[in-house]
């Protein structure tokens, strides 16, 4: 074939009509992708419904909301950017201790300002540690993040005169919200407070994952070599995501400390890092709502099973995790999507 033939062949458009409709479909696909779908209201309706259905279980409900927030922060880095970490409790712990030490040592128990400081400090910790650690990937990164959390925990243990060690920070006194709303025994106040904050966090994370920046994070997860080749500042992108996730995890930690008025060095535990990862994998990574389902299922199961068998309850969670990883790689949310698709097809035929 001569070069001239080749040029005309490559330049000849496919049938103009099919091209135009393909263009329209492709444009609509990307342009509408971030639009809210009706079912995205479901988690919020359920959270509101739970307030009325379980009025005496709202302290537990608050912990579920905090778990969702924590898992959501992990989803941003693990699910979207593909950063594996076993040290995410580091930021949760920094958030919790910011609140705890402010009240115990400086007699400052105002919830909102101490939460904001907690977000600031945990983000800063994310920025600094991310800057160093995110040059590494996979197993190396897993070990380094784990080590970072242990280092901080042990530093806290060394100065247990300040941190209270594993006995906890003594004398935490959290003031009334806005100087008006007391954290009552049944946890009504904090359920609503944390629920509203979760809504804000969810909105922010949702904006981020549907932004061009969020697309770049997905690109890093899918193929980091190509991202370098198309000129993406990969390290900077990852550090940014890590910083934001650290801030949200710190916020969850601060709310944990405020809602329970209790904090020990246990918040930095490897257990806590592993738990949030298990929640997310259970629910499904990289799709926002996996965090909602995973954290809820995990914590409700933990609550029930630990009452049923105080020494053996982790078996149930272990079993569920094994089944999820083996048979539902995309988590419970993925399973749900498949089921809906299956029944949807059944109804049509």
């Amino acid at each position: 074939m001569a070069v001239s033939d080749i040029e005309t062949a490559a330049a000849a458009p496919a049938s103009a009509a099919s091209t135009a409709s393909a263009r329209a479909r492709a444009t609509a696909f990307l342009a509408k992708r971030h639009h809210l779908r009706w079912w995205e209201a479901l988690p919020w309706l359920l959270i509101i419904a739970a307030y009325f259905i379980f009025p005496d279980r709202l302290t537990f409900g608050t912990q579920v909301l905090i778990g969702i927030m924590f898992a959501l922060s992990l989803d941003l880095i693990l699910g979207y950017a593909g950063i594996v970490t076993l040290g995410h409790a580091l930021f949760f712990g920094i958030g919790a201790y910011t609140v705890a030490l402010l009240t115990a040592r400086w007699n400052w128990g105002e919830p909102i300002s101490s939460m904001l400081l907690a977000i600031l400090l945990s983000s800063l910790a994310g920025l600094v540690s991310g800057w160093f650690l995110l040059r590494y990937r996979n197993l190396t990164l897993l070990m380094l993040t784990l080590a970072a959390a242990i280092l901080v925990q042990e530093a806290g243990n060394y100065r247990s005169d300040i941190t209270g060690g594993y006995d906890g920070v003594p004398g935490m006194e959290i003031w009334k919200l806005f100087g008006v709303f007391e954290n009552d025994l049944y946890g009504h106040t904090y359920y609503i407070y944390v629920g509203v904050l979760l809504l804000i966090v969810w909105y922010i994370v949702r904006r981020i994952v549907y932004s061009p920046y969020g697309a770049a994070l997905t690109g890093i997860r899918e193929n980091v070599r190509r991202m370098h080749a198309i000129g993406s500042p990969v390290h900077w992108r990852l550090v940014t995501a890590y910083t934001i996730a650290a801030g949200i995890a710190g916020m969850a930690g601060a709310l944990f400390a405020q809602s329970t008025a209790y904090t020990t060095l246990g918040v930095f535990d490897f257990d806590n890092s592993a738990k949030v990862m298990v929640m997310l994998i259970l629910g499904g990574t990289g799709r926002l709502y996996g965090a909602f389902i995973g954290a809820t299922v995990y914590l409700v199961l933990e609550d029930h099973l630990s009452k049923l068998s105080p020494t053996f309850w982790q078996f149930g969670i272990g079993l569920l995790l094994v089944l999820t990883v083996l048979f539902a790689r995309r988590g419970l949310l993925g399973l749900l999507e498949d089921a809906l698709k299956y029944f949807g097809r059944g109804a049509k035929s």
Partner: protein
Amino acid sequence: MTAALQVEKLNRSFGALPVTRDVDLTLERGARHALIGPNGAGKTTLVNLITGVLKPHSGRVLLNGDDITGTSQAERARRGLARTFQINQLFRGLTVLENLTMTIGERDGECNNLWRPAGAKPSVIEEALDHLESLRLADDALRLVRELPYGRQRLVEIAIALAQKPRVLLLDEPAAGVPSSESHLILDVVAALDPEIAVLIIEHDMDVVFRFAKEITVLVQGAVFTHGTPQQIMADEQVRAVYLGEEGHKVAGASHG
């Protein structure tokens, strides 16, 4: 006129093994340059040195006259140096369209935006679709890359590189792994590339090389063996010896295997 790409006395070794030895290479604006040589001659290593995946132990790389030897891979890409990979490096779990919109987003700095929805800029989508149309990929725009046949995936490799709007394009065996019945599609695209872009192609198929290239560099054991027009290279007895030797080995190897 400054060359689009200039490589000066580039050296690199892996341990004790020198894989790039005093390589000089110049691509003028709009060049059509082929890099050939037997397997293991260091062709892909040279591409990796030019794009910054590897750092040279000595020597310089100049892009439009600017020394880019010390810069990162991403910085070079932003300055107009694009490449394709010998083995596909694509965003397999994303649609073909997203592979391109992301590339355009990174090129234009859009990806620094954390708040605006990615689909809210029609110009980016339009441009991505234009690139896909010119490579006849428009009908696959919404398919996941991993669902495409390998030959079409190779086209996405080229589409991504072109969406970077490069001034220098390095093609590392663009038709590698594609059955010959489909490879003409890819070679058509290569032949129809914008004449403004300086192109360096690594290719084993001599028909393609002689048809496409206006200049050829032969690399043997990491060093430039010779360099010239296709006519000069074709007439060169030593090149024939190197290549025939190589082909002879291949045939022998195949009959043993």
